[in-house]
């Protein structure tokens, strides 16, 4: 039986048409993944027909033979409440902060008119989505739960009323690689157990294809290719799908060519960082517990770990851009001064690129001044003309049109903004680039091109790279060596290929598994 049929579905939002008459269907109990870059209209496709966005929908959208296009809010509300469960991207904010998990689960349970569940029933529901200590969780407020735990709770709520269709809009995008795999597997298991159909929306073709029956690839509001997941992943017909697959870093792709490594550049010994516990509770949280890390000239090293593993804190402590409790960092054999006493010549060798490309550029500055900032501070010997010439050269080197130099960050796309950030980092000719999740906020295709650019820069300039990421496959694409962190400690490190082929530690094995 066909549960959902979309025909000529067209969506207009704010006067702009973003979905241009697409067709797809879902059989009862099967799952379809809509895959596309941001702006392809995939999220609107799964929200607008159900009345969850301000967009105007035309065409046809039949759910269980009921036409939803043109249906009133009251009717849509009933259908949503009775037959459909929703899971969204942001688990951190999707729970009402002032109601306990139990209260919200009870509300979801009874939304279609079911009997009030007993505590035992609710605890069992939480247990089924893999939430530990379910009985305790019922009385907790959302802020006590981590992102992964909240997403599990939200999934429990989404399926509590036994819907026939589960709509999951980027359910794992905000989670780290290991959690991603776990949550996808959970969703897959639940749909099979409950005989639910699933409409899954994601920008990651490779990940999603393992967990859905069918895939439809969306590009600029049109479906460019659709069919069984295995077929699309194995033998994509359209160029766009091929490009998407090629861009997603995988562990079994061809090994990248890396430049040679030389003498030690950074030697960090016994680095420890702790934070005061949030709120007024006493005590400190140990984020990094006595870690050693070496990086050689021309070597690219990745620190890989889940969220909260301390990888970012460690990198910032070494780069003197974050707090540090104790430990020594040597730069080309000489000790690096503390954060407050860093002089321009100390700073020049080590430049960072951050995750959120737009937030890492001052919104009021022009691209030209942003790229020139490190030069003005770190290279006072350069005259204005020399600075200008260098800015132009840097922009060309990262593949940006020099005409962008007069724009402000708000006028740049995510990929362009990240290139500006890279140009700024490279402008003082650093020996080491710190990449803090530098590609994880970007679309797959854009992230792919940025990774290519970084690899090329690494080879050409003999740059050292310290890369922070939660994704082994991304690390493999750029790095000689991988360091795996968990709970503030290094649990395993080794050459990239060895570590991926024969992981020794449990955490590494899980990370490898997650990137397959």
């Amino acid at each position, binding site marked *: 039986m066909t549960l959902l049929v979309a025909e000529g579905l067209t969506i207009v939002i704010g006067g702009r048409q973003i979905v241009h008459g697409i067709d797809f269907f879902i059989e009862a109990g099967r799952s379809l993944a809509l895959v596309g870059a941001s702006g392809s209209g995939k999220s609107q496709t799964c929200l607008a027909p159900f009345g969850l966005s301000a967009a105007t929908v035309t065409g046809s959208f039949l759910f269980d033979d009921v036409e939803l296009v043109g249906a009133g809010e009251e009717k849509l*509300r009933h*259908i949503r409440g009775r037959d*459909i469960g*929703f899971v*969204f991207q942001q688990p951190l904010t999707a729970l009402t*902060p*002032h109601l306990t998990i139990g209260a919200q689960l009870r509300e979801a349970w009874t939304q279609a008119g079911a009997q009030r569940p007993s505590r035992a029933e609710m605890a069992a529901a939480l247990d089924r989505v893999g939430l530990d200590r379910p009985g305790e969780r019922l009385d907790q407020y959302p*802020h006590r739960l981590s992102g992964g735990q909240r997403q599990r709770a939200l999934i429990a709520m989404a399926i509590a009323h036994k819907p026939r269709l589960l709509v999951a809009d980027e359910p794992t995008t905000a989670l780290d690689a290991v959690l991603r795999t776990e949550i996808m597997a959970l969703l897959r298991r639940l749909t099979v157990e409950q005989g639910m159909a699933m409409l899954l929306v994601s920008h990651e073709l490779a990940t999603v294809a393992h967990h859905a029956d069918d895939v439809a690839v969306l590009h600029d509001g049109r479906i460019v290719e659709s069919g069984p997941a295995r077929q699309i992943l194995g033998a994509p017909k359209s160029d766009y799908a091929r490009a998407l697959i090629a861009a997603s870093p995988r562990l079994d792709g061809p090994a990248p060519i890396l430049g040679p490594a030389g003498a030690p550049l950074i030697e960090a010994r016994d680095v420890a960082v702790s934070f005061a516990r949030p709120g007024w509770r006493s005590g400190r949280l140990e984020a990094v517990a006595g870690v050693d890390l070496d990086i050689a000239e021309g070597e690219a090293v990745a620190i890989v770990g889940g969220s909260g593993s301390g990888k970012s804190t460690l990198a910032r402590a070494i780069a003197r851009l974050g707090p540090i409790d104790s430990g020594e960092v040597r730069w080309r054999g000489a000790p690096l001064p503390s954060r407050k006493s860093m002089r321009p010549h100390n700073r020049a060798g080590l430049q960072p690129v951050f995750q959120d490309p737009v937030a890492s550029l001052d919104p009021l500055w022009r691209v030209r001044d942003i790229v020139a900032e490190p030069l003005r501070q770190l290279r006072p010997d350069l005259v204005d003309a020399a600075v200008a010439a260098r800015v132009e050269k840097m922009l060309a080197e990262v593949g940006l049109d020099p005409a962008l130099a007069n724009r402000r960050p708000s006028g740049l796309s995510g990929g362009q903004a990240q290139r500006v950030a890279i140009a700024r980092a490279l402008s003082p000719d650093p020996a080491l680039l710190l990449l803090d999740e530098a590609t994880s906020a970007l679309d797959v295709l854009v992230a792919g091109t940025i990774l290519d650019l970084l690899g090329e820069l690494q080879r050409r300039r003999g740059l050292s790279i310290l890369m922070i990421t939660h994704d082994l496959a991304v690390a493999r694409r750029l790095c000689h060596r991988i360091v795996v962190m968990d709970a503030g400690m290094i649990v395993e490190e080794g050459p990239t290929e060895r570590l991926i082929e024969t992981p020794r530690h449990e955490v590494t094995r899980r990370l490898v598994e997650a990137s397959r």
Partner: protein
Amino acid sequence: MFDLIRRRLLTALPTLAAVIILSFILMRVAPGGPFDGERPLDPQTREALMSAYGLDKPLHEQITLYITNLLRGDFGPSLVYRDFTVTDLIARGLPVSLTLGGLALLLALILGLGAGLTTAARAGSRIDHGIMLGATLLTALPSFVVGPLLALLFGLWTGWLPVSGWGDGDARHMILPVIALALPAAGAIAKLARAGLAEVLGQDHIRMARARGMRWSRILIVHALRPALIPVASYLGPAAAGMLTGAVVIETVFALPGLGRYFVQGALNRDYPLVLGVVTLYAGLIILFNLLADLAYGWLDPRARL
């Protein structure tokens, strides 16, 4: 919770002491004194008066003495109302002021939250724009305009309600002053509640609740209202302060025997102990309201709980 109260009290007490000492010093260093009346007193009488009221002692001794007495509930004698102690005057004025302020705060909350909910539920409609314009107008109108205006409309012209005096707590005497005092605060609360709701309604958890197919009214009350009240709670302290200053005006306009009147009289007549007493009391009240606001936070947002 108790920890929070204790912590707040720890900062409140020094604040209170600072208010007292600051006001005390200000009054003493000011030129002119309570006995500088129309005709100059002869030096001997003056000296006798000064020593009788302890004004000839060194400043720090006066302060210590004052605070010690305060702890026993003794605000000292009034210098102008010679037959009364300040404690007497406060005992007379406080009930009037508290009734007035309390009722006005309640009314302001009811009106403001009602208006906030109504407008947020119909965001963008004419009702929304109308009510919000009204609310902005109310916050822009001084209470000494609203007061006489109300008096004129409902008192003098229509004769429905009494416009002056307390009538020994007769409810009808209270209606106009309470409304006049409540309206500006109601406007401010309406605006805060409306803005708070608008922000909360744009958040993910509201979309989640909508996806669950819940009725709009239920979403508004169960999922949106509590977080939206946080700005209203933080306004509680300033609102209380506003009520107290507003009361000074309203009590004058409607000729009510409240604390505000005593304060103005006291300030104009340089009746030190009276002014000091009222200021101390007001500071205490404001601190109390800020504490209540802090406690309200905890209820509104579990993340703020310790």
